[in-house]
């Protein structure tokens, strides 16, 4: 009775494996069509003199676009802006996120309500956040300037989004506001999976709260924290909407995405814009390798871990 059923299952297992590919085909084809093909075309365009306003077949010009790109100070400015934006905003988000998560991890009344409040900035569209903060940071009547003036921190209103020295930090501030609560929720979820017993043991061993945090909590949530940091960093490197809405195409804040799109669409220079876009793609690929190696995270591990 057992034997035929087992043999039947293994035949089924073979059929299942064949069926699996059929189930995958629609998704794979779609991904190749919307991601694979356009990416390949972008890389090809970056080696040509293609223009948006010219329908003639583009000519192959080798690496000429890239030669121009590495000579353009605006490109390096965009690289600097993007990298500083990513490093500063992700660091702040991680630190503040940890503080908020630790605070929300305490047992107290109204914790659910607090957690709900954390979701508000995350749910607000990026464009809307940028507009809201653009209004709050308005150089004459913005509420931030009013508050700082009233507190005596500044003597005259600051032009947060127009002053080249301040604009990038204004963009960072908006990103930190929008993303920190989200980071906090992810860290909180990791914290709530920690077993209570080890803390009791640590208390008996006389470990203070600071020692408990650095010797127990941090090492235990490190894998989850690293995954969150990596994803946020990769997300920050491709930032576009915040800069575009808050400061337009201003060179003071232009990210690599803003730079690439400006050349591609506004200047109609598809070849050069594609070279910049490919440059961004390479930077993000390099950052992924770097972060995964440094963070000693096996992304494949996510597969068994979750």
């Amino acid at each position: 009775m057992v034997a035929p059923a087992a043999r039947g299952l293994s035949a089924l297992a073979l059929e299942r494996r064949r069926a699996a590919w059929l189930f995958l085909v629609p998704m794979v084809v779609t991904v190749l069509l919307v991601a694979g093909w356009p990416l390949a075309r972008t890389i090809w365009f970056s080696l040509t003199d293609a223009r948006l306003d010219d329908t003639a077949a583009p000519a192959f010009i080798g690496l000429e676009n890239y030669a121009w790109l590495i000579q353009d100070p605006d490109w390096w400015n965009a690289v600097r802006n993007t990298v500083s934006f990513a490093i500063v905003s992700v660091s702040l988000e991680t630190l503040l996120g940890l503080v908020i998560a630790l605070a929300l991890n305490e047992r107290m009344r109204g914790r659910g309500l607090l957690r709900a409040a954390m979701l508000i900035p995350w749910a607000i569209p990026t464009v809307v956040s940028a507009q809201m903060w653009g209004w709050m940071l308005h150089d004459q009547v913005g509420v931030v300037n009013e508050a700082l003036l009233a507190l005596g921190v500044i003597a005259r209103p600051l032009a947060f989004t127009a002053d080249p020295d301040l604009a990038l930090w204004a963009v960072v501030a908006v990103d930190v506001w929008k993303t920190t609560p989200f980071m906090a929720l992810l860290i909180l979820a990791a914290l709530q999976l920690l077993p209570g017993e080890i803390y009791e043991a640590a208390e008996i061993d006389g470990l203070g709260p600071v020692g408990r945090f650095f010797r127990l909590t941090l090492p235990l949530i490190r894998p989850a924290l690293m995954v969150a940091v990596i994803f946020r960093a990769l997300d920050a490197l491709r930032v576009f909407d915040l800069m575009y809405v808050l400061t337009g195409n201003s060179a003071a804040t232009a990210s690599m995405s803003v730079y690439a799109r400006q050349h591609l669409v506004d200047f109609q220079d598809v070849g050069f814009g594609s070279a910049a876009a490919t440059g961004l793609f390479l930077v993000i690929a390099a950052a992924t390798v770097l972060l995964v190696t440094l963070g000693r995270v096996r992304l494949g591990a996510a597969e068994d871990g979750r």
Partner: protein
Amino acid sequence: MSGRRLRSLAARALFALLLLVIVAYTVFPFFWAIVSSLKSGSALFSAELFPADPAWGNYAAVFRDRPFGRNILNSVVVAGSVVAVSLALGASAAFALGRVAFRGRGVMLAAILAVSMFPQVAVLSGLFELIRWLGLYNNLLSLVFSYLIFTLPFTVWVLTTFMREMPRELEEAAMIDGATPWVVLTRIFLPLMGPALATTGLLAFIAAWNEFLFALTFTLTDEMRTVPVAIALISGSSAFELPWGRIMAASVIVTVPLLVLVLVFQRRIVAGLMAGAVKG
């Protein structure tokens, strides 16, 4: 003894203060947007926390002066279609990836994760060409098509984790009864995965609703704009006089339904985001 009690009281007061600061920090900007949207004329330039006489003029103006109703409809149609297509393709792929052990599964999951981290700008010129070739420029279908690049990998990834948690016995029992994989997926798993599908769909919907770069690039006329582009491009009589009251009114209109959805489903959303390995 009383010194220690005093200290614990002070610690609790500090902790309460910290919580207050956290809540004020997360909630104030949206509160301020609501307040500003209810002020008109010169009241907008005063910093009063509650408008003395709330005015709804900004809300009326948003719909009167621009096709904002149409923009909202566009966003709903685009995000809704993207979610439907992503869930259909994603559930089928997740069944294979989550339930069947085959060679190349790990590589495929890694590739899917990599696609979800693509910088959108890197596919912009290739997509633009494809969309023009398909004749979809300034057409909402171009957005449905292009948004799949981020909603589909995300959906596949999250549904795969949910699919893994389905009990093995259910599937084995059905297969001994001669059910094909297709029947197992559509008759047994999908009905059980209702909550997972709802969560994933909601997250994909929010991502599509908020998208800006493709919507800005692939549409041209005001009637074809989605909500984020419409709000970003609201302009006044001159570049120096942005109609902030209206911008805030439009912002509040599109954010409130989203907030209601998110708050209603908050538990599931956090679970779904965890499963989706932190896709923002």
